[in-house]
C-alpha cells in the first residue's frame, strides 16, 4: 500500500499540472418543446483546491449530478466556465488524467474484475502495471476476486471494483457520482469508511455527489449544500473533524450537530 502512495506522489508532480477544479458562473438550461426551456443550474461558483475532498449534497433533482457531468466534460455549461487543472475537462479526460465512478458501476460484464480494473491502461494505450493493479485490488479489498465476473459479485464489491478502476491511472481528479447510491444502509456506511481509508492514502482532488448527509460529512473537507429548481449553491460547510476514518466519529456529538444542521437545510429546501 505504501507503494501506491509513492506512485501517486511521484506521478502527480511529474505532470507539472495543478489539480484544482474551478466553476465560474456556471448555468445549464435545457430546451423544451415550443421554445420553452428549463434551468437546471444557475450561478454555480465553486473552487476545489488541489488535494481537497468536496461533497456536493442536495435533494434528488437539484442538478448536483449535472455539476459533476459538467466537471467530467460529459456536458457543456450553457454559460460560465469550468476548468480542471487550468484546462478544459475534455483535455483532462483526453490525457487520461480523470477518474470517475458512476452510480451505475458500468463494469463490463464480459471482463473479470482484474480486466475491468486494467481497462483504463488499455484505453490509454499504456502498458499495464500489474503490480500497481494488484495493490489497488488489495486496497479496495477485492483480493481473491480478481478472476470473478461482475455478475458474481455483490453490489458493494462491484462499486469497489468501479472505484479501483477510477483510481488505477493515478488520476489528477476523482469524481464520484453517488457511487454507493444503490447499496443498503449498512453496506453503504462500511463502503464510506473504506473510501475514507483509501482517500487518506491517496489524497486526490475529489468531488463526491450524494444525497446522504452522513456520507458527505464523514468523507468531505467541505460540504456544498445545493437547492433545487434551478440548482444553486445554498451553503458551504467546512468540516473539521479529527480521524474521519475512525469508527467512533459517527457517534460524536460534533458529527451529529453538523449532520442535523445540514439535514435541516435540505428539508427547508424541499419545502421551498
Amino acid at each position, binding site marked *: 500500500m505504501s507503494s501506491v502512495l509513492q506512485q501517486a506522489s511521484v506521478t502527480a508532480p511529474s505532470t507539472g499540472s495543478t489539480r484544482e477544479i474551478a466553476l465560474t458562473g456556471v448555468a445549464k438550461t435545457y430546451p423544451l418543446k415550443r421554445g420553452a426551456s428549463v434551468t437546471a443550474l444557475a450561478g454555480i461558483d465553486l473552487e476545489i483546491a488541489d488535494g481537497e475532498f468536496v461533497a456536493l449534497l442536495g435533494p434528488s433533482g437539484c442538478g448536483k449530478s449535472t455539476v459533476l*457531468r459538467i466537471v*467530467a*466534460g*460529459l456536458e457543456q455549461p450553457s454559460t460560465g466556465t469550468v476548468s480542471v487543472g487550468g484546462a478544459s475537462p475534455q483535455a483532462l*479526460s*483526453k*490525457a*487520461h488524467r*480523470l477518474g*470517475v465512478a*458512476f452510480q*451505475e458501476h*458500468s463494469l*463490463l*460484464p*464480459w471482463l473479470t474484475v482484474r480486466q475491468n480494473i486494467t*481497462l*483504463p491502461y*488499455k*484505453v*490509454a494505450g499504456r502498458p499495464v502495471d500489474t503490480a500497481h493493479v494488484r495493490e489497488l485490488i488489495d486496497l479496495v479489498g477485492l483480493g481473491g476476486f480478481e478472476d470473478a465476473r461482475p455478475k458474481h459479485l455483490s453490489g458493494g464489491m462491484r462499486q469497489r471494483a468501479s472505484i479501483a478502476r477510477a483510481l488505477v491511472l493515478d488520476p489528477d481528479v476523482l*469524481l464520484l457520482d453517488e457511487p454507493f447510491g444503490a447499496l443498503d444502509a449498512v453496506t453503504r456506511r462500511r463502503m464510506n469508511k473504506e473510501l475514507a481509508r483509501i482517500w487518506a492514502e491517496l489524497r486526490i482532488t475529489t468531488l463526491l455527489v450524494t444525497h446522504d448527509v452522513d456520507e458527505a460529512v464523514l468523507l468531505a473537507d467541505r460540504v456544498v449544500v445545493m437547492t433545487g429548481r434551478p440548482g444553486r449553491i445554498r451553503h458551504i460547510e467546512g468540516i473539521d473533524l479529527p480521524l474521519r476514518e475512525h469508527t467512533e466519529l459517527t457517534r460524536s456529538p460534533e458529527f451529529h450537530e453538523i449532520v442535523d444542521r445540514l439535514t435541516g437545510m435540505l428539508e427547508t429546501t424541499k419545502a421551498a
Partner: protein
Amino acid sequence: MSSRLRTAVYGVAGVVVLLVIAQIIGTTGLLGPTWPPITEVAAFLFDPSNHRLLGNALAATVSEAALGGLIGIVAGIGFALIAALLPLLAPGLDRFAALIDAVPAIALAPFLILVFGREGTPVIIVALSVTFIIYISTSSGLDSAGRPYRDLFSVLGARRAVRLGRVDVPAALPKLFDGLTLAAPAMILGATIGEWFGARRGLGVLFVSAMQNYRIELLWSAAVLAVLCSLIVYGAALLAQRAVVRRFA
C-alpha cells in the same frame, strides 16, 4: 431439469403426432395422390439407389447456402461497422438495406441471372437476405451498450474506434447471434429458391423436376432434406447464440 425434460417430451410428442396424422392422410388418400404416406417417403430416403441423386443435390444446396451465408455475414457486419463509425452514412445504409429487402427475389431474378449466371444466383439470393438480417441485428447490437458505458469511455478519453472495439462490438454479439438464428433457415430457403431459376444441381432443381415428372416421393424427400438442413443450421446457430449470451450479456 425436470421442466427441461418435460419440454423435450412435449416436443417429441408433437412431432410424433404430426407424423402420425401425415401418415393417416397419406394411407387413406384424404388429400389426393400428391400426399404419400410418410413411410413411403422414408423408404425413398433410405433407399441406397437414391442416395447419389439426393446427396449431390444436398451438397450443392448446402455449399451455396454456406457460401452465400458467409458473404452475407461478412457484408452485414461490415456495413454495420461502417454505419457505426461513419454516422453520416448510417441513414443511407439503413434505407438501402430496407429497399433491397423489400424487393422480392423473384423480381430480381432475371437481373441476377444476367449478372451472376444460373449457378451464382442462389448464392447471391442467400447473400442478400443474410446481409439484411445481419446488418439490422448487428446495427441494433452496436447501439445497445447504453449511456453508462458511453460516459465511462468518454471520461477515460477513449477514441471512437477504441470504444467500438472494447464495448460496442462485445455488447453487440448477443444480437448478432440472434440475427444468425434468423439467418440460418433463410440460407437454405434462399439457396433453394435461387435454384428454381435454372441451376444445374440442388434441392431446388429436384423440386422443379420432381413436380414436372410427377415423382411425388422424390419431391417429398427433397422437402424433408431441406427442412432437416434448416433445422440443423438453426439448432447450431441457437447453441452458439446461447453460449454467447452466457458470456457477453
